[in-house]
């Protein structure tokens, strides 16, 4: 008994170092060598800093509708000394709203992303590991849900439930897990037949233990990569929901509803669309670069 347990323990510990040794460098070193990956890291870092500390840097309260925030004819004020990025049609400072809005938009996207990755990990691992009926059920479910136009589904959900931040997060989480789930399933499927899993099974480890202690840690790198890549989807989707009016409700600022309001003023006050648009673009670019960089760093073979 004691001998067998020791052997089993030794076997269980073996494979973890696999990926790290490959290529001869640590993932961080590989990551650091790529200028695009570092750019992504910097961008994401900046955005997270803005989300965390931006509200303290904001020159004004984002909800205050200033008397001098509108011209005499009632039009928004262009960028200038008092309002560095101009004002919106209600006379509110665009820069302050952008800084607060970053927290709202990123916050929703991050939480939604975490929940959707959790769902993707659970479903993908179960499908890949057990195969058979479980795999078929999960994958067909994914197929069916993926074929439903997401904005329609979100729109429907938004009419049934009153749009609060929580509901928005849940709606986005519910539609963002399909692709990561497939990828995770594929990877787990490949791992299922590897030696360390076979031996753990032979040693009598339960399925749950194998999944939790062996399989998931092996794909954790992959999960991190796709969590990052998925982020650009969730941030875009957050903004899309707000743009069509079922996401974050005014007066709470959020990139999507700022762009939506700005679209009415495309010719008369272009700064209303430009700045939140740039913020959104930078966020998507940053997380995509970071995600690509992570993927290349963990597994340069997949390049």
């Amino acid at each position: 008994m004691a001998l067998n347990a020791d052997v089993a323990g030794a076997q269980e510990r073996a494979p973890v170092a696999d990926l790290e040794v490959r290529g001869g460098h640590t993932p961080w070193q590989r990551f650091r060598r790529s200028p695009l990956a570092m750019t992504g890291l910097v961008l994401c870092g900046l955005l997270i800093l803005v989300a965390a500390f931006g509200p303290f840097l904001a020159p004004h309260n984002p909800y205050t509708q200033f008397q001098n925030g509108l011209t005499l004819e009632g039009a928004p004020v262009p960028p200038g000394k008092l309002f560095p990025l101009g004002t919106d049609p209600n006379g509110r400072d665009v820069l302050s709203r952008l800084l607060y809005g970053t927290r709202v938009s990123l916050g929703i996207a991050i939480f939604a992303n975490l929940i959707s990755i959790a769902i993707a990990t659970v479903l993908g691992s179960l499908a890949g590991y057990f195969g058979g009926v479980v795999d078929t059920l999960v994958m067909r479910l994914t197929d069916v849900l993926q074929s439903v136009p997401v904005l329609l589904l979100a729109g429907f959900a938004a009419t049934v439930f009153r749009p609060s931040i929580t509901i928005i997060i849940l709606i986005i989480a519910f539609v963002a897990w399909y692709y990561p789930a497939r990828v995770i399933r594929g990877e787990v499927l490949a791992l299922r037949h590897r030696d360390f899993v076979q031996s753990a099974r032979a040693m009598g480890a339960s399925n749950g233990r194998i999944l939790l202690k062996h399989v998931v840690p092996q794909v954790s790198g992959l999960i991190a990569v796709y969590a990052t890549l998925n982020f650009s989807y969730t941030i875009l989707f957050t903004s899309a929901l707000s743009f069509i009016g079922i996401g974050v409700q005014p007066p709470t600022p959020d990139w999507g509803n700022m762009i939506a309001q700005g679209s009415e003023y495309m010719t008369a006050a272009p700064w209303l669309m430009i700045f939140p648009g740039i913020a959104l673009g930078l966020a998507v670019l940053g997380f995509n670069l970071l995600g690509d960089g992570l993927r290349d760093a963990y597994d340069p073979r997949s390049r």
Partner: protein
Amino acid sequence: MRLLSTLRRPATYVAAAGLTLAMVGGSAAAHGAVKRAIPNGGTATVTFQSDFNTLDPALSTDVYSNSVIHALFVNLVEFEPGGKIVPWAASSWTVAPNGLTYTFHIKPGIQFTDGEPVNAQAFAYGIERVLNPATKSPGSNYFLDVVGAPQFAAGKAKTVSGISTPNASTIVFHLIKPERVFIDYVGLQYGDAVPAKAVTKEGANFAHQPVGDGPFMLQTWVPGQKLVIVKNPKYFDKAQAAHLNSVVFQIGGQSEVSLLKAEQGQVDVLGDLIPPADFASVDSNPKWKPYVNLDPIAADEFIYFDEGKAPFNNMDVREAAYWAIDQSRILQLVAGQGAPTGQIIPPGVPGHDSSIPNTFKQNVALAKQLLVKAGYKAGTGPAATFWVFNTAPGPVLAQAIQQELDQVGFKITIKSVPFSTLVSQITQIPNVQFGIIGWVSQYPDPVSSISSMFETARIKAGTDLADYNNAAVNAQLVKADALAINKAVPLYEAAQKTILSNYPWVPLYNQVEANFVNPRLGGFSQDDSYWFDYANWYIK
């Protein structure tokens, strides 16, 4: 009793000095005027951001649906710009000296597009249908002064005894008491004749597949996308037939995109007027001078409170909300277009009281005091949902109003919905706490401007948006409705003062419509009765 409803979305207006109800709208070619050789043919395109609510004359309350209904259906009489009433399907009519009997003689040979005759029975059917409780018409109150109508509307009689059709070309209305504006009602959408066979066959679908007798007929309606009306070859009056072959309504586009299309000549008329965001630049650009039409109309923009439910059933809460509002900011937000008003009856309509100041100054301290008086802790107030239409300038105004109210302690949530949804929600009484809307007086009579919104009977009909229910005021208004106009005006003025002192509304401004019309389109005008009269339009 009567209901005159025309709900409209507000738009942006130019502050016209000395705004009078000069409904001499532009180049309107009125029916009956001498016409030069006007070219026939062609198609005009109109853009609308929101879809039409209904094409059933018995169910319509908004100006946009009414404009198309006026093209599809015929009344016994119609309005000329300026409010004068002239014969249409009726060749003539007489009113008994005691004002209790109206006899209309109907022209022969008028038909619906499905072949059914437009005769006395058809008009009787149309009006009875409006009174029929099963139809749930918002106009049901209009004809309650006809003998037998109250019993019919209560389900106690099978027909309206006061409507008689001695022969196919004569229809007679007997009234319970004289009603000054009965003739106006006959000219509104609720007075249209409708084809009994088609209505019975289509049921509720008649609103989307109407069968009419007007200068146009419906060709297609793809909800949310497109509506097309085409010239009706069977229209009875060849001399007054439509000039255009068709009018195409493009529904659902963003207003800025529609403006770009209009500037490039791809569409002829912006149904939602010049977008507020672009008015300043469009108006100051000499290139668009031939396109911009400024039309004053008798209309109010106001915030209404539902006095029938919390929290606005408490007058102190209503008054607190009133003083929290910054009227000058609202006017600034609609780009300074629109003349401020402090009352219900618009200028130009008898009963408009020039002694009532047009502006009021925001008083935050008083608002807060009133909330304390209403029982709220200092600095706090009730929560409420504010309903607004989702096209410009609705959301911008709503956010300003929200902030002004939150500042004194209210907790306001904005509910922004498409205009047609808003109309159905606010005319169903229990659904809305307060909101902002515009109201057009379809004809220049205080019945349209004030009685229709503050008489008790209008609550059930849905146009007493404030659920205003004051027996004394109701009696005053009802009495005034029966008198000749010069005797009625003092009563209306007194009633208006009482109403205003109860704060059912926050009156904001009167409107001037800033239309953008391609100069190739002739015959364009805007009026309160029909909004756009498509039968007058032609391509130059």
